[in-house]
């Protein structure tokens, strides 16, 4: 008798819940199909309110994931991959015939590819995370001694973690701008095949291509399916992980690496040699601005190849969760992004120079970015009720 008295109430609850929501379930199923087809048709559904006007319908999390993958992540990877292929070609041409002309083409393609990378770095998920993709493509400062010893010893394995800081864009930055006093001297080093600079440059570019192709193919084979179907709100679900990745990128890859660390926010003195693309001198600002665009696009759900085309993303999700709030957090975040862009635009094209000349401007920029860290990490995570990565314990 005791046993039944324990089980019956539990059964009763679930029965009651089941009955009361059967009707809603029907409504929900009907509504689920409409937004799904609209993204499939891939036309200009420029408005973002396709699934949230109706009160009875919840936010369509799966469509958000689909938008992220199909309109943002995969196209960004494709664009990046294409730019790398171009870089590879010009590298080969240059290495075979090092002239001032072929050299400037390599530099141009390196920058073009580096800019495309800014759209990829934040998606540190799946295979990308497993193989330390972002560390191998954009770790800085480059380990110059290691690069030089790799080249002179001709005995290196770029897959070893000791070589993470001697490959990727910043190593190429050193190879293109740092191995000689001036362009002539650098070209001369490449002209001497025995010095092996050309071989190393080619290896580094090829490694980026093979890593990128691994990441792309993992997305295209199984990862896309499992990603878009993991719609739950748990520590390991896609939304939680990608939102966490996004914030982590904003805080570390963007705020700290590009601005904070070189400006000396975390050290006794400024470290002007810690900027991104240090040897190229004039690229740190343009890279930071491009990264800001990438952040802006992802937050607002813009298709990477057609910025007019927006679909569900964090902004919409926030607006849905905060429907009753007057002060829209999404607006605050977007306004802060505008302020960040303004502030960045005022800086010297070479952050390293800016730090030496007037570091205060860098510190101010850092504070403007930090204000958005608070919005993202505190307000946004609270509204979306997403837990911070890997802080696992009971709560009450």
């Amino acid at each position, binding site marked *: 008798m*005791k046993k039944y*008295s*324990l089980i019956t*109430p*539990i059964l009763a*609850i679930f029965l009651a*819940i*089941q009955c*009361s*929501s059967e009707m*809603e*379930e029907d*409504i*929900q199923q009907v509504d689920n199909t409409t937004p799904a087809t609209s993204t499939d048709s891939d036309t200009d559904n420029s408005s973002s309110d396709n699934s949230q006007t109706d009160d*009875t*319908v*919840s*936010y369509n*999390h799966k469509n958000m994931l689909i938008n992220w993958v199909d309109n943002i992540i995969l196209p960004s990877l494709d664009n990046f991959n294409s730019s790398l292929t171009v870089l590879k070609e010009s590298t080969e041409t240059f290495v075979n015939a090092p002239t001032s002309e072929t050299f400037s083409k390599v530099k141009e393609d390196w920058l073009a590819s580096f800019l495309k990378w800014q759209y990829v770095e934040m998606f540190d998920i799946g295979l990308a995370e497993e193989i330390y993709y972002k560390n191998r493509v954009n770790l800085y400062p480059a380990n110059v001694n290691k690069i030089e010893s790799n080249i002179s010893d001709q005995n290196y394995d770029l897959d070893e973690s000791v070589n993470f800081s001697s490959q990727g864009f910043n190593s190429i930055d050193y190879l293109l701008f740092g191995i000689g006093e001036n362009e002539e001297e650098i070209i001369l080093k490449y002209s001497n095949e025995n010095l092996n600079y050309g071989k190393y440059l080619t290896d580094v570019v090829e490694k980026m291509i093979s890593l990128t192709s691994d990441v792309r193919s993992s997305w295209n084979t199984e990862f896309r399916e499992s990603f878009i179907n993991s*719609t*739950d*709100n*748990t520590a390991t*679900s896609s939304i939680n992980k990608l939102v966490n990745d996004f914030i982590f990128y904003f805080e570390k890859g963007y705020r700290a690496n590009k601005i*904070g660390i070189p400006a*000396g*926010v*975390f*050290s*006794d003195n400024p470290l002007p040699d810690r900027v991104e693309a240090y040897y190229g001198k004039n690229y740190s600002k343009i890279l930071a601005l491009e990264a800001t665009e990438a952040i802006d696009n992802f937050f607002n759900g813009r298709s990477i190849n057609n910025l007019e085309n927006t679909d569900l993303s964090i902004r919409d999700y926030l607006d849905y*969760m905060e429907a*009753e*709030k007057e*002060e829209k*957090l999404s607006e*605050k975040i977007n306004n802060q992004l505008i302020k960040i862009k303004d502030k960045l635009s005022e800086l010297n094209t070479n952050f390293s120079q800016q730090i030496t000349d007037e570091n205060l401007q860098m510190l101010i920029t850092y504070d403007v970015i*930090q204000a958005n*860290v*608070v*919005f993202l*990490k*505190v*307000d946004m*995570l*609270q*509204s*979306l*009720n*997403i837990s*911070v*990565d*890997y*802080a*696992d*314990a*009971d*709560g*009450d």
Partner: protein
Amino acid sequence: MGKRISNYLNRKKSHAATLAFFRIAFGSLMFFSVIRFWSKGWIESLYIKPNFHFKYFGFEWVEDFGSYTYILFILCLISSLFVTIGFKYRISIISFFILFTYVELIDKTTYLNHYYLTSCISFIMCFLPAGGFFSVDNLIRGSKIEEVPSWAVDSLKFFICIVYFYAGIAKINSDWLLDAQPLSIWLKSKYDLPIIGQTLLQQKSIHYLASWFGMIYDVCIPFLLLYSRTKYIAFFFVIIFHVLTKVFFPAIGMFPYIMIFGTVIFFDSKIHIIILNRIERIVKKLSVLLNIKSIELVKKNYLNSIHYPRFAPLFLSIFLLIQVIIPFRYALYPGELFWNEQGYRFSWRVMLIEKRGDTRFKVKDSISGKFFYVRNENFLTPFQIKQMSFQPDFILEYAHYLGEHFEEKGLKNIQVFTDSFVALNGRSSQRFINPNVDLLTKKESFLNKDWILPLNDEINGL
């Protein structure tokens, strides 16, 4: 009056099966809790991995044992097993209380109301004659206690009533009842629950319903459980309520189970006897299966003298009185309780606030004016960073730790400032700690922390 009390203390008896049942339920739940805690890897991540532990005020002397912390847990596990089977009951429950509480004192980052509940219950049980019936001790002594004084059972009942009632009145505040916060945030994000997730849980009206139901439940359930005609319907609600909380908030851990089993103590002792008989039958079957000589659990010898410390009733009365008073200590502090959390803990304020923070520390040389920001992840685990970021006493303790750390590293004229933002119950974030205060000049105490900036809002309520 005095006579009545002495009559109650000395004459009024309850059947010993009630306490025995509670002992078995509590002991076995604790046994599984410890195993669960271990299997989740939390001993490692919460007690061994951190380089630094946040201490309760007054308990700074509590040391962690590094990787030997596992020994504490093994002993805790053995104690809980012995409590369950009633082997050397008194020693077992005292050692369980001490070990469990000690582990909790190692790091306040892990503070949970139900850990505190566990400490309190095991503390009360140290004074109760719960090992005299249906226990291994019976077999050894060849005797049993059939009756226990009623105050023994009543003190547990009263304590459970305190827990519920205070949890209930804590919900009588404007955030909970008028804004349905934080339930609104929490339920809305449970969109992944089957059927109700995308529908009911998205409705504000449901959030209000849940808030009000939760408050009324907590306030009323003690009375319904005490009153004999309503106690069974009350138990029905206990199960509904706690199962729902477990479904909505899986991270709540063992709390629902502790409360569900705990409230069975309110039942008539006949039911406890039935349950114990069932257990006995299972044990007998098992012993037959395992080829062990049939165990006679219930001996026929009765023991008249009941062993419990003479001072127990007085001691427990004082303890329970303190329990009644402590939750109101917040009234001694100015400002919003949910914001500054002065007097928040140890008061059965369960699942009342959704709070997030981002707190960074600026280490400054007061003479040269040079400063840098600390990377919290170099010193704290992600879980500690999360908890530290919105709790003032954590922020202060950590600031002092940083001060000492950098002094050891050779820095001079150190000042530690914060850049701290916190959001509470769906409000926009605002600055939390006065950024101009050098926290090294502040000491932890029971006095008001005037360096916490006030909340730009008002929360009305108890």
